[in-house]
C-alpha cells in the first residue's frame, strides 16, 4: 500500500518519476507546465521555420499548399494554446502560492488535472498530422471554410476536441487561481499588498472564466455543424457565418490579455528588483490591469471591421480606449526605472525587450484600431507583424525574463548570465529582422496565410530577410537549451535570495520545501522580503 513506503519528506521529494507523474505540489506542477509548454514552443517553432523556409522565395520549394496550410494553422494553434497560455499558467502555478504565502493551490488535485489535460490535448491536436492531415483553416477556423464540406477530414475535429480540453484545463486553472488568491493569503497579505504578478493572474483568471466557456460553446457548435448536420454557421443551411466570428472573438480578444497580462506581471516583478526601486504607482497598476480586463470584453469586433456587420465607431473607440490603461503601465515601468540603479542582468534585459517590443506592438495595433486604416491592412502581413510584436516581443520576452528570474528559486542554481545575454541579443536581432519587414510587406499588400507569391510583386527581399531572421531566432534558443542543461548539471549555487527580491518567494529556501515556508516574514507592505532585509540590515549595523 502507498502508505507503507512513506519516508521522511526530504527523500520523498527526490523519489523520481512516479513522484512527478502523481504530484499535487503546485511547484512541481508549475515546473511540469513550464517544461511541457517549452516543448510545445519548440514544436511550434519548427512549424514556423517550415513556414518561413517556404516563404523565403516565391514559388513552392519545400511543400505543397495543403501542407503549408496545416503548418501555419498548427504553428499558431500550438504557440497560442499550448505554449503561451500554459507557460504563463506555469509561472502562476509555481510563483503565486509562494508569493502570497500559501502552502499550495486551493485544489491541488484539480491543479494536477488541469496540467495533465494539456499534453493529452496537445497530442490529440497533433494526431491530425498522422491521420490524413491536421486542421488547415487557420487557428481562427472561420466558417464556412471550417465546415465539413471545405475542411473534410478528421484533423479539424481533432483540433476542436483538443482545444475544448485545453479550454477546460484553463477554466479549472482559473478557478483554482482565484480561490487560492482570495482565500489562501498569509496573515497580513491584504489584497493591496498582493504582488503585481498575483494581481495579473487574478484578472487573467476572471477573463478565462468568463471568456473561455464561450469559445467552448462555439467549438461545440462547429463540431455539431461538421459532424451532425447542424447549421449554426453555414449560410447555405440557414446559419450565420458572422455568428462564428462573434462568438470566436468574444473569447479570442480577451485571450490576448490572457496571453499578455501575466507577462506584464512577470515584467513588473523583474523591473523593480533590478532597478532597486519599488514599482512606481502600485495602485494605478492594479486598476489599469482591471480596466484592461474589463475593456477587453468590449472590443472583440475590431477583428470584424471588414465584415460590414458590426458597429464600427463603438468598437474602434473602445479599442483606442484600451491604449489608456496600457499607457499607464508603460509610464509606471519607465518611472520605476527612472533614477534607479539599474542592473542589466539577463532577466532585466528580457524585461526591457518586452517593454520596447510590446510598445511597438501596441503602436501598430493602434493603426489597426482605426477603421479606415484597418480596411487597407486587414488580413495582410501587417497583422502578422502586429501579433508577433505583442506575442513574441511581449509575452515571449517576458517568459524568458521570468525563466531567468525564477530559475534559481526553482532549482537553487542560477542560469549562466553570459549565455543569457548572448541569447537575448541574438533573439532580439532575429526577432526584429523577422517581423519588422512584415509591416512593409503588409503595406505592400502581401496577404497573410499564403504559401506562394508572385516574383514580380517586389516582396522577395523582405521575405528573405524575414526568413533569415526566423532562423536567427531558432539559433538563439540553442544557447538557452545548453544553458539549462549545464546549469542543472552544475550551475552556480546561489542562496535563497540571489537577486535581493521583494516578494515572499525569496523568503523561503531554494528550492522551497513541499509546504513552502517554515516561517513567514511579517507582511506590512507589498514588499515583505525587502522590509525584512532592510530591518535586519538596520539591526546589524545598530549592534
Amino acid at each position, binding site marked *: 500500500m502507498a502508505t507503507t513506503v512513506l519516508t*521522511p*519528506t526530504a527523500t520523498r521529494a527526490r523519489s523520481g518519476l512516479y513522484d512527478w507523474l502523481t504530484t*499535487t*505540489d503546485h511547484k512541481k506542477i508549475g515546473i511540469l507546465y513550464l517544461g511541457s509548454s517549452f516543448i510545445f514552443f519548440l514544436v511550434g517553432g519548427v512549424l514556423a521555420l517550415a513556414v518561413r523556409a517556404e516563404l523565403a522565395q516565391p514559388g513552392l520549394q519545400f511543400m505543397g499548399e495543403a501542407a503549408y496550410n496545416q503548418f501555419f494553422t498548427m504553428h499558431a494553434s500550438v504557440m497560442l494554446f499550448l505554449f503561451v497560455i500554459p507557460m504563463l499558467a506555469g509561472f502562476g502555478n509555481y510563483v503565486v502560492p509562494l508569493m502570497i*504565502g500559501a*502552502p*499550495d493551490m*486551493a*485544489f*491541488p488535485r484539480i491543479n494536477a488535472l488541469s496540467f495533465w489535460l494539456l499534453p493529452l490535448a496537445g497530442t490529440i491536436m497533433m494526431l491530425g498530422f498522422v491521420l490524413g492531415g491536421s486542421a488547415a483553416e487557420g487557428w481562427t477556423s472561420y466558417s464556412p471554410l471550417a465546415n465539413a464540406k471545405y475542411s473534410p477530414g478528421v484533423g479539424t475535429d481533432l483540433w476542436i476536441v483538443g482545444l475544448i480540453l485545453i479550454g477546460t484545463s484553463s*477554466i479549472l486553472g*482559473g*478557478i*483554482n487561481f*482565484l*480561490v487560492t488568491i*482570495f*482565500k*489562501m*493569503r*498569509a*496573515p*497580513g497579505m491584504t489584497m493591496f499588498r498582493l504582488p503585481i504578478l498575483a494581481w495579473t493572474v487574478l484578472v487573467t483568471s476572471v477573463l478565462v*472564466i*468568463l*471568456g*473561455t*466557456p*464561450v469559445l*467552448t*460553446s*462555439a467549438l*461545440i*457548435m462547429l463540431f*455539431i*455543424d461538421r459532424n*451532425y*448536420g*447542424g*447549421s*449554426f454557421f453555414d449560410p447555405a*443551411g*440557414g*446559419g*450565420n457565418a458572422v*455568428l462564428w466570428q*462573434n*462568438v470566436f472573438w*468574444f473569447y479570442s480578444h480577451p485571450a490576448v490579455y490572457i496571453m499578455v497580462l501575466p507577462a506584464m506581471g512577470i515584467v513588473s516583478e523583474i523591473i523593480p528588483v533590478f532597478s532597486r526601486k519599488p514599482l512606481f504607482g502600485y495602485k494605478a497598476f492594479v486598476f489599469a490591469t482591471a480596466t484592461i480586463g474589463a475593456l477587453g470584453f468590449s472590443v472583440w469586433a475590431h477583428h470584424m471591421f471588414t465584415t460590414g456587420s458590426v458597429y464600427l465607431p463603438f468598437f474602434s473607440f473602445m479599442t483606442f480606449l484600451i491604449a489608456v490603461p496600457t499607457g499607464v503601465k508603460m509610464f509606471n515601468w519607465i518611472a520605476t526605472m527612472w533614477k534607479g540603479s539599474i542592473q542589466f542582468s539577463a532577466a532585466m534585459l528580457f524585461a526591457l525587450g518586452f517593454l520596447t517590443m510590446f510598445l511597438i506592438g501596441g503602436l501598430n495595433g493602434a493603426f489597426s484600431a482605426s477603421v479606415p486604416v484597418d480596411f487597407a491592412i486587414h488580413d495582410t502581413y501587417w497583422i502578422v507583424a502586429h501579433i508577433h510584436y505583442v506575442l513574441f516581443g511581449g509575452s515571449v520576452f517576458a517568459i524568458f525574463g521570468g525563466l531567468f528570474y525564477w530559475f534559481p528559486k526553482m532549482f537553487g542554481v542560477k542560469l549562466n548570465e553570459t549565455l543569457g545575454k548572448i541569447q537575448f541579443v541574438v533573439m532580439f536581432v532575429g526577432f526584429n529582422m523577422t517581423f519588422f519587414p512584415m509591416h512593409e510587406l503588409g503595406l505592400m499588400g502581401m496577404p497573410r496565410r499564403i504559401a506562394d507569391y508572385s516574383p514580380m510583386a517586389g516582396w522577395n527581399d523582405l521575405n528573405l530577410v524575414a526568413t533569415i531572421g526566423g532562423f536567427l531566432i531558432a539559433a538563439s534558443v540553442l544557447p538557452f537549451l545548453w544553458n539549462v542543461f549545464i546549469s542543472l548539471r552544475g550551475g552556480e549555487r546561489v542562496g535563497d535570495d540571489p537577486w535581493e527580491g521583494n516578494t515572499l518567494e525569496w523568503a523561503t529556501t531554494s528550492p522551497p*520545501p*513541499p*509546504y513552502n*515556508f*517554515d*516561517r*513567514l*516574514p*511579517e507582511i506590512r507592505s507589498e514588499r515583505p522580503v525587502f522590509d525584512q532585509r532592510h*530591518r535586519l540590515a538596520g*539591526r546589524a549595523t545598530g549592534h
Partner: protein
Amino acid sequence: MTANADVLVPVVDRGESLEELVHAAEEHTRGGISNPVLGMILFIASEVMFFAGLFAAYFNIRSNAPVWPPLGNVEFNLRGHVLLPAILTLMLVTSSVTCQIGIWAIRRGDRKGLMRAFVVTIVLGILFLSGQAYDYTTLGFGINDGPFGSTFYTLTGFHGAHVFAGVLMLGVVLYRGMAGQFSARHHDAVEAASLYWHFVDVVWICLFTLLYILG
C-alpha cells in the same frame, strides 16, 4: 520586539502529507465562504458563460430568420407539444426544493434527512433525463433539420448533459454521506453540489420558457 518579527505559519509537522497540510491551511483561510463553495460559484459563473454562448447563437439565428419557427415542418411548433416538458419542468423544480431540504437537514446535523432528500432529488433527476430522452423520440425533427433543429437539440442536449453531471455529483455526495463524512459543520461538498443543481434547474426554466412557451 525583534524576536516577533517573524510570524509562524500554522504549526507544521514535516511528516504530514501535502494534502493534510493544505487541509490544515484551509482551516486557517479567511472567514466567509469556504473554498469548495467559492470554487463552485466560480465554476457556475463559467457555466453561465457557456450557456450564454449557446443562447447568443440561438437569438442571433432566430433574429436573422424571416419567420420563427421556420415554415415547412409543423413539428417545429413546440407550443403544441408542451405537456410532457411541463411535467418534466415540474419535476426539476421539485428536485431543487428537495435538494434544498437536504441542505437544511445537514445544516442541522440531520444526516438521515440529507440522505432521504438527496435520494428523492436524484430519482427526480433521473426521471427528468429519461423523460427528456423519451420526448426526443416523439419529436418530428432532428438536429440536422436546419437552424431550428440544431439550436433546439444543442441547447436542450447540453442542458441534459449538465443534469447528468449534476446527478453524478449528487450521487457522489450521497455516497460520501452514507459513509458518514458530513456533519453540521463540515458539509461544503453538499452545499457546492446543491448550488450546481439549482443552477441546472434555473437554466432549464429559461430554456423551457424560451423554447416551449414563447416558441
